[in-house]
């Protein structure tokens, strides 16, 4: 096609060309597992959350003491407001479920191994971002546990000095007060767009290291029909949650408006923040919590270099078994955090956290060192 015969728009803004180069004409492997659709599902879910969140923001009042009532109004007084709210809450559950699964899959299959380290790091950056956004969304509910969690976080943050204190001050804007919820609401929406940006980077980073498959299929109808199945199953699980378990994994104590005079018995976050909360609770004090949380993520970031396998080696059976045990360990740690503080849970937290670090710092280098191509 010459420049003259190209359509007006295409010759000035080659969107069609970009679509063909970056999506349609890619060499697509013929033996693609369904779990490989997780990236597309995650991207679709983030966009879905942006849209449902936008609709909610039209009625949500970001004022401490009024926010909870405004959500009650959305679920009772706004046409189909309860449905949009459940979409947003259960969409979050689906997003975290898919992200945890994708990260677990990357660990299990050894996808993080060189040259996949940047793809792996971008996955972790995405997880960190959605953890932060998820926490902000949870704080915005202004229910009993939301309120106390936010107040404990800002109070603890306010006592920090130096760089951590500056970060806390920059983020929360000082102790929780009238300005806090509007600030968090803006950050909640803004960071979601940055999330989308990270997904785009992840897509291109993954493409850059992809090997050309021996046997390829077309985007349409092969990959579209493949994604159709993935979306249908994902949608089915989502619908079961929205209509039959809209509050799955939430602390029931957060279903009442915050009372500044009464601290709830157990201030536990929704399920998807539990692993992060559990690590933060593993060491005493605010600085201890921050150090434990950073350490837990630092070992994840370091996995490509803790792994001592030869280039091109596939994960051994022992490594895979250990990775499954790690998955169970993180689930057990989260359940311990959900049960609330007690003498037994303090011991269990130390055991489960200890195993987590043992897995990455000792077992991973030992087991992978023996793997050859």
């Amino acid at each position, binding site marked *: 096609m010459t420049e003259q015969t190209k359509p007006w728009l295409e010759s000035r803004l080659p969107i069609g060309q970009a679509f063909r180069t970056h999506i349609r004409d890619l060499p697509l492997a*013929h033996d693609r597992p369904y779990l490989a659709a997780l990236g597309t599902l995650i991207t679709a879910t983030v966009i879905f959350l942006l849209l449902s969140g936008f609709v909610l923001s039209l009625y949500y009042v970001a004022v401490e003491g009024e926010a909870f*009532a405004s959500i*009650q*109004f959305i*679920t*009772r*007084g706004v046409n189909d407001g*309860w*449905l949009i709210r*459940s979409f947003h809450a259960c969409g979050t559950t689906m997003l975290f479920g898919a992200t945890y699964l994708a990260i677990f899959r990357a660990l299990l299959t050894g996808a993080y191994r060189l040259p996949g380290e940047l793809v792996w790091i971008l996955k972790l950056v995405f997880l960190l971002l959605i953890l932060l956004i998820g926490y902000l969304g949870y704080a915005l509910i202004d229910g*009993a546990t939301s309120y106390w969690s936010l107040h404990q976080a800002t109070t603890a943050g306010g006592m920090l000095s130096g760089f951590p204190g500056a970060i806390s001050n920059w983020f929360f804007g000082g102790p929780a007060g009238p300005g806090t919820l509007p600030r968090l609401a803006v950050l909640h929406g803004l960071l979601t767009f940055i999330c989308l940006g990270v997904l785009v980077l992840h897509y291109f980073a993954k493409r850059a290291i992809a090997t050309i498959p021996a046997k390829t*299929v077309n985007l349409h*109808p*092969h990959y579209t*029909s*493949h994604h*159709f*199945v993935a*979306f*249908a*199953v994902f*949608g*089915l699980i989502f*619908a*079961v949650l*929205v*209509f*039959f378990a*809209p*509050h799955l994994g939430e602390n*029931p*104590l957060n*279903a*009442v*408006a915050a*009372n500044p*005079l*009464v601290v709830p018995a157990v201030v536990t976050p929704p399920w998807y923040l539990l692993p992060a909360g559990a690590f933060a609770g593993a060491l005493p004090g605010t600085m201890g919590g921050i150090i434990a949380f950073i350490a837990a993520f630092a070992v994840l970031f370091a996995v490509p270099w803790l792994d001592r396998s030869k280039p091109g080696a596939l994960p051994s059976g022992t490594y895979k078994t250990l990775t499954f045990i790690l998955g169970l360990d993180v689930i057990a740690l989260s359940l311990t955090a959900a049960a609330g503080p007690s003498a037994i849970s303090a011991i269990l937290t130390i055991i489960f956290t200890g195993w987590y670090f043992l897995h990455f710092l000792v077992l991973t280098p030992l087991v992978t060192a023996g793997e050859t191509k």
Partner: protein
Amino acid sequence: MRRLIPALLISAIAFTHNARAEDTLNPPHWQSQGTFGSYDKAALQRGFLVYQTVCAACHSANALHYRDLTALGLTTAQAADIASSVKLATGPATLDDAFKNPFPDPQTAATAFAGAIPPDLSTIASARPKGTEYIYNLLTGYATAPDSMTLMASHYYNTAYPGEQIAMPPPLKDDAVSYADGTKATVAQEASDVAAFLTWSADPNLDARHAIGLRAVLFLIFLTILAIATKRKIWRGV
């Protein structure tokens, strides 16, 4: 495949049929609790009467408005009558007024009840694990304290309350209300009905949620089957 679709339809009909049954007292059972359950509107109306006559003297339900009562099966005129019988500071309540708050602020309530603030009841049923049963067990759980136990001042022994001491005096008694439908107003009946009402108050969209949900899930199961069949056909020979 051919056997699956009729089986799904039959189970759907069975579930929706089940959802039309009534709440029962022996054993305590609420129709809203099943996976596809829906509210027994007669029980909700009786429960509202108990709430209005007994609970509302001390407890607020700030999220509820008088217009919401039409969801219990009352007509708009009946709801308006109920509203106009309530005296607010500004005059008789209207459909768009929130349920009357018995105290102007939490401090007044705390003063009236020696420091114990009666909680808002709008969402109490979702704020407790197994909220419906909990409310029923709490309201029927008053008993004479065992000899080994010393109660705190102005507290009552209750088997369902955490710590077994509650500041709320036994609120229900036989014939505390007189039901329009002739149901005998025993303490257990009143407790069961008000538990149903507060469950509705915490989750007023349950009926619509379950009705839409059943159709949505059946549709998505069908869509998933179609998607798998399509994919298999397209990928044949790849």
